[in-house]
């Protein structure tokens, strides 16, 4: 076996801090399989009650946007300020709007 094959695969770790909050990316962990990844994530990322739920996903399975596409992807939203409520001028005397 080569060095590379011997290394346990990498998993990304997401933790829900408490019920009502979304899972948030906290880092990554090496493990032989998903079950072990959860056990290791518990030891490494929740030693002080940082979470009530853990997601792990193989790092290789994540598809990410390319930073060089950032302009093409996100620039078009920039001039659409009418999508924000502050764009509209409403007289002060009008309430509850």
């Amino acid at each position, binding site marked *: 076996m080569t*060095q*590379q094959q*011997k*290394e*346990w695969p*990498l998993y*990304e770790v997401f933790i829900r801090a408490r019920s009502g909050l979304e899972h948030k990316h906290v*880092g*990554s*962990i*090496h493990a*032989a*399989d998903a079950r*072990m990844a959860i056990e290791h994530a518990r*030891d*490494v*990322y929740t*030693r*002080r009650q940082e979470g009530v739920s853990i997601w792990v996903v193989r*790092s*290789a399975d*994540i598809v*990410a946007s*390319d*930073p*060089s596409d950032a302009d093409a992807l996100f620039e078009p939203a920039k001039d659409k300020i009418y999508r924000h409520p502050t764009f509209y001028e409403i007289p002060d005397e009008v309430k509850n709007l």
Partner: protein
Amino acid sequence: MYTQGLDSLGADCLHTTEAERAALEQRFQAKVDAEERIEPKDWMPDAYRQTLIRQISQHAHSEIVGMLPEGNWITRAPSLRRKAVLLAKVQDEGGHGMYLYSAAETLGVSRDEMLEQLLTGAAKYSSIFNYPTPTWADVGAIGWLVDGAAIMNQIPICKCSYGPYARAMVRICKEESFHQRQGFETMMTLARGTPEQRRMAQDALDRWWWPSLMMFGPNDAASKHTAQSMRWKIKRFTNDELRQKFVDITVPQAEFLGLRVPDPDLIWDEASQHYRFGTIDWTEFHQILQGNGPCNRERVAARQRAHEGGSWVREAALAHAEKRRRREAQAA
């Protein structure tokens, strides 16, 4: 996710012209200057990447090797409370090593490569962990002084320009504060104890004071990486600035304990509102960096033993995972 696409990124870079490269570098530096964070898949100069890989992996190695001097006392801690605390602290150091290795991996270096560098002695770790811990007071002195110096070094890195390193450091700094406080508490207990316990505390301070000051690295004039690292905002303060800060806050703590800082030249300077302290013996520092400290060989040998001893476990876990995958596939 971060390690994906780095190879292609590297290949692309080979095809960029000198002018394109200069433009990329300029954009990168502008981003750093504007206090924006650099993330794993963003373009970065190769030297920035290499500097971070070196620094983060050495930092990770330091956490891992740092488990050894204190681990030495887990079975002999003087009470169940002290033992539980020390176990938790050493476990934290292991966790910190893991956060840091995974931050380094986002730069395209593998965990195996980094471990290899530690085990062959190619990579450095903090010189402080090459000193022995012959007495229980050493555990207190390490928490108070060594973790104190580490916190001083690490807090500015929470604002490092490289996102994953900065985030790992925020997590580490939060946890590190308990390490320092438990150390000071141990020293306080000894300092208020029997004459023999006080002597033990003083002896530990005598041995750890100077090595702790060396943890901040060479004097500014002799530090070859400082200027570039500050421009890249990997580093925010110079070695001497941080060392001075450490001395200024630690000397009063030693006075509170009724212990004597082992430096005849130490004096409060009213004009500058700082302590002035004696000259550091850099020969000792360089001897340790070159592998000739009291415990260099022992530390690396301990890591090698652990790595070799654990290899069958790592292989078995992989084989077991593979077997389970095959069975699940058959059942489906």
